[in-house]
């Protein structure tokens, strides 16, 4: 039965792969700088690596927000999050799985009268606002670094093209790793407390914890989403929404990847703290909103008019509406699961 409940998370993972891989490789594939097969392979491998190796930090934050401990509840929450994302996307609002799952967890807290850690909630909400802003700042900084370098080096257009292709793949790999590390918590984070997996020691130092196996499975679901359904999204991002040159696209994807990484990497957080520098909380943030932030940052450098303020307004609306709807729907869904289907939603 637990394996069946996991399907909810895997569906969410599939949907994440289908939608968010476009943020990483959309422009490269849309502009025919990178073939879809190459992009899908690189994204899949690095998403799984990011999920298994770096996914624990953001998951701990989600668990701190609400320790969902019954498989039926985890299933309900992931399905509610998936449906919320689906409805909001239908309403053309750029929503994020993160916001939906956080809303659903808060709904579970209310339903089960579990306390919601306000500090964690504030940290999460603040990071949603901060992530696109930070992505814009990173993009601006990277833009000037690249511009200065290219103006000094006089690289032949054809060579620059070859380097940009390689750069798009490398940056895409970093982006996919960051996506896996940051967003795996959305996909299987609510199953951590009820994970059916036990630790495995394969040989010598090779050890896979139960949680890592869960993350691996979630990563595979994201990969499946990338291979089966992301092509349309990639070409749409490349051709319709974002009109950037491949080089600017590389800068935007790198800025987006860095944002996802700083909100996911325990190592980076530790390094910053050891240097006495301020560090960011490990929180799952929206990949789509980070990329929009990065693109807007580059856009503002050229002219404030190129920034799509209507789209930015929709993002702000998504910050409020998505968690609110997910919380309300999860309350209703949990009521049905507990009272109609007679399933345990809290232990």
């Amino acid at each position: 039965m637990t394996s069946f409940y996991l399907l909810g998370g895997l569906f969410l993972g599939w949907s994440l792969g289908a939608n968010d891989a476009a943020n990483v490789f959309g422009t490269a594939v849309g502009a025919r700088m990178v073939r879809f097969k190459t992009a899908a392979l690189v994204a899949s491998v690095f998403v799984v690596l990011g999920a298994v190796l770096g996914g624990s930090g953001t998951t701990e934050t989600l668990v701190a927000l609400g320790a969902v401990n019954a498989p039926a509840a985890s299933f309900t929450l992931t399905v509610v999050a998936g449906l919320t994302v689906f409805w909001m996307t239908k309403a053309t609002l750029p929503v994020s799985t993160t916001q939906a799952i956080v809303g659903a967890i808060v709904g579970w807290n209310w339903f089960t009268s579990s306390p919601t850690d306000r500090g964690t909630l504030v940290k999460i909400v603040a990071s949603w606002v901060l992530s696109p802003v930070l992505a814009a700042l990173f993009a601006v900084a990277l833009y000037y670094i690249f511009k200065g370098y290219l103006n000094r080096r006089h690289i032949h257009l054809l060579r620059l093209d070859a380097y940009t292709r390689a750069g798009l793949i490398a940056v895409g790999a970093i982006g996919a790793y960051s996506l896996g590390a940051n967003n795996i918590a959305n996909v299987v984070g609510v199953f951590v407390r009820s994970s059916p997996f036990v630790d495995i020691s394969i040989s010598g130092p090779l050890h896979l914890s139960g949680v890592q196996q869960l993350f691996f499975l979630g990563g595979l679901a994201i990969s499946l989403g990338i291979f089966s359904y992301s092509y349309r999204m990639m070409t749409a991002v490349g051709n319709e929404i974002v009109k950037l040159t491949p080089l600017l696209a590389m800068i935007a994807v790198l800025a987006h990847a860095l944002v996802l990484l700083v909100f996911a990497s325990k190592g980076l957080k530790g390094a910053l703290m050891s240097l006495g520098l301020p560090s960011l909380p490990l929180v799952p943030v929206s990949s789509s909103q980070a990329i929009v932030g990065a693109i807007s940052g580059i856009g503002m450098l050229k002219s404030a008019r190129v920034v799509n303020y209507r789209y930015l307004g929709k993002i702000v609306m998504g910050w409020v509406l998505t968690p609110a709807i997910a919380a309300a729907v999860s309350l209703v869904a949990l009521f049905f699961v507990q009272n109609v289907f007679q399933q345990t939603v809290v232990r």
Partner: protein
Amino acid sequence: MDLLIRRTKPLEVQIDEYLDIIVKGGLVFKEGVKCYLKRRLADFESHLEQLSDMEDTGDRLRREIETNLYSHTLIPESRGDVLGLLENADRVLNRMAETLLQFSVESPEVCEEFSPFFVDLADFAILAAEGMVKAIRAYFTDLTSVRDHINQVQFYRKETNKMAEKLKRQVFAHQLRLSHKIHLRYFAYHVELIAEEAEDVCDRLSIATIKRYV
């Protein structure tokens, strides 16, 4: 790094060779005009033949470059601009070859007092073409200097126009048959067109450069 540029390096060489041909074609054209004006007709015919061969080589190279750019889907963002530039630059070379051929076919009777005007006219027109080649090279490697080269081309195009006007005024002020006057004007006009075509390429180049700026 070498692995990354294994496809693009031969193409870089081909583009350089193609632009070299335009520069050399300009020099041959100037020499051809001088030989014609000095009535060294054997040398003139040899230059014409040389320029005609260059035109063929240029056409072949341009087609190879176009095929390579498309078959390897290189520079997707700038491919249209680059192909447009190369095709229009080819027109400059073709114009030089065509003009020299008209000298051979129509044998215009150039009075001695007009010879220096024709020499200067050819010099200015070819300086404009050379500036165009420099601007195209800069487009590939150093965007910041494209503007400087384009300014030079515009300057030499204006000088060519002035020189052509001066020549036409001189021709029409002389006691010649009207058909002779019109014939000489036709040649002045055709040499002038080399600089006009070079400037047209530079107009496209300015737009392409803006698009390429990061």
